[in-house]
């Protein structure tokens, strides 16, 4: 069965320093992978998605992620953190057409990113 593991429940960085949020996935098929962000009291917003095109995916707000099949990883990075990046980030996997799931999204448990001034 497909699943995602977010390796850190909480990451703290200083403003202006790089961000790395780690995600490993497990999938029987070629997966579609996503990163979503959730700001307090706001809905989930898609940051970026990988659907078997380029392995380096660029998203909104300067975030990017690299799909590494050999490592079954899809880590999220940003060169320089901003205070507004403080939020919870979810790594998500989908297996289109797996069984009857019709491409359901499977969410990780989330990584809370704190940004210190």
């Amino acid at each position: 069965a497909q699943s995602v593991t977010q390796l850190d429940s909480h990451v703290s960085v200083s403003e202006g320093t790089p961000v790395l949020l780690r995600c490993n996935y497990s999938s029987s098929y070629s997966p579609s992978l996503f990163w979503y962000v959730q700001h307090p009291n706001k809905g989930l917003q898609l940051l970026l998605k990988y659907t078997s095109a380029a392995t380096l995916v660029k998203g909104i707000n300067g975030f990017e992620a690299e799909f590494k099949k050999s490592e079954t990883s899809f880590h999220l990075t940003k060169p320089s953190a901003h205070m507004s990046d403080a939020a919870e980030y979810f790594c998500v996997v989908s297996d289109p057409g797996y069984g009857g799931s019709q491409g359901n999204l499977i969410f990780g448990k989330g990584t809370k990113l704190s940004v210190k001034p």
Partner: protein
Amino acid sequence: EAGVAQSPRYKIIEKRQSVAFWCNPISGHATLYWYQQILGQGPKLLIQFQNNGVVDDSQLPKDRFSAERLKGVDSTLKIQPAKLEDSAVYLCASSLGLAGLETQYFGPGTRLLVL
């Protein structure tokens, strides 16, 4: 473009009472999803509709949860009777097509507290 709308935003009830949540998806989106997000966890899919038909309800606790999307547009999710463990945020999302191919857009959620 208007986003996914949900109401109410907050609800407090006592256990064994019933509650209903409403969702209006983005116009033209055929697929609608209800998720349950328990504090400290990622959202978990409860039910997925394609137009007015159920595609997947394998994780819906059918003894107490029900959902409908009668006209293929807006949807309601009901819990009857509620249990303490139902305290969570209930998220509605919609997409043009199937989740693996299309982006899901999420509403702000309904935060339910069962006392």
